[in-house]
């Protein structure tokens, strides 16, 4: 995965990490957040259930991002979109 997976749209960055499992979910989220400015939003699409908790927890612990919202977009396939604000 590279920069092509991050699209910038009005200070909202999108990253699709479906198929990634922990800890790579956090690694990709962190790398995306490092490139953003404080206050900007990362919409993170993922399908690894444990990451729904782990990624926001680690972002908070390292003081790089704050969870704003969790949306379960596909219950059957278990896909979530996390809305994370860069700190």
């Amino acid at each position, binding site marked *: *995965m*590279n*920069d092509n997976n991050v699209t910038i749209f009005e200070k909202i960055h999108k990253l699709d990490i479906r198929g990634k499992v922990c*800890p*790579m979910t*956090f*690694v*990709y989220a*962190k*790398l995306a957040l*490092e490139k953003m400015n404080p206050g900007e939003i990362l919409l993170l699409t993922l399908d690894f259930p444990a990451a729904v908790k782990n990624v926001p927890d*680690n972002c908070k*612990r*390292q003081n790089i991002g704050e969870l704003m919202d969790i949306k379960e977009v596909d219950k059957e396939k278990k896909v979530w979109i996390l809305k994370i604000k860069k700190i």
Partner: protein
Amino acid sequence: MDLTSEQIERYSRQIVLKEIGGIGQKKLLDSKITIIGCGGLGSPVAYYLTAAGIGSIKIVDFDVVELSNLHRQILHFNNDINKKKTQSAYEKLHKLNPDVNIEVVNEVLLPNNIKEILKDSDFVIDGSDNIPTKMLINDASVNLNIPFTIAGVVRFNGQIITVNPQEKTACYRCVFGDITEHEPSMSCSQAGIIGLIPGIVGSIQANEAIKCILKIGDLITNRMLFLDLLKYRFSFIKVARNENCIACGDNAINVIETHDYNIGDACFE
């Protein structure tokens, strides 16, 4: 340059660290480290720095692998006996991480070549086995304003000091003065050495290099770390910069040009 997906995977456990991240990993990939000696100390240093993704590593050694080296010099294997240590090291390190540019220098480190060898380095690691060479590394690195770490190991004991000339911390010469004038102390071959002590001390030296490049944590500066693995005593002793030190003091001289290091007289066992 962005990290490739292979680099992200390879260094993921470092990127996860709060103190490193992608930004720190890129700093490591952009850095150049010189390791003097690829024996007992240089082996773990080179392994860990190569694995950590230091961009360029220069290894300086003139020696060949001997059977009696193998209990502690973990870069070298049984079938490397009589091979140049730099060649043996290159083969292992390149296999471990082809992402790293490994450069080898097959020369005895002397006053007339040391500055050329060290000049592009962001950090220098002493893994030599004799005090004159350690003093030469100290004097040249101070002169070039490059941070470095010097260590010594014998029996079950080790000692380490890191010097950052950019912050004017105490140098090796501040602590020991001109010990090259004294009788050489007993070397590994006579005193003996447990194989793992350079493994532990060298690993700490690698940690010093990584921390210095990333500017994280506390270095072993203005103090020395002493390890005694028989009694499990780990102690720091404070040391201070000597304002009159001929290498780093207020009126420092170009000591490399004028000093007689007696490198050839030192015990290279």
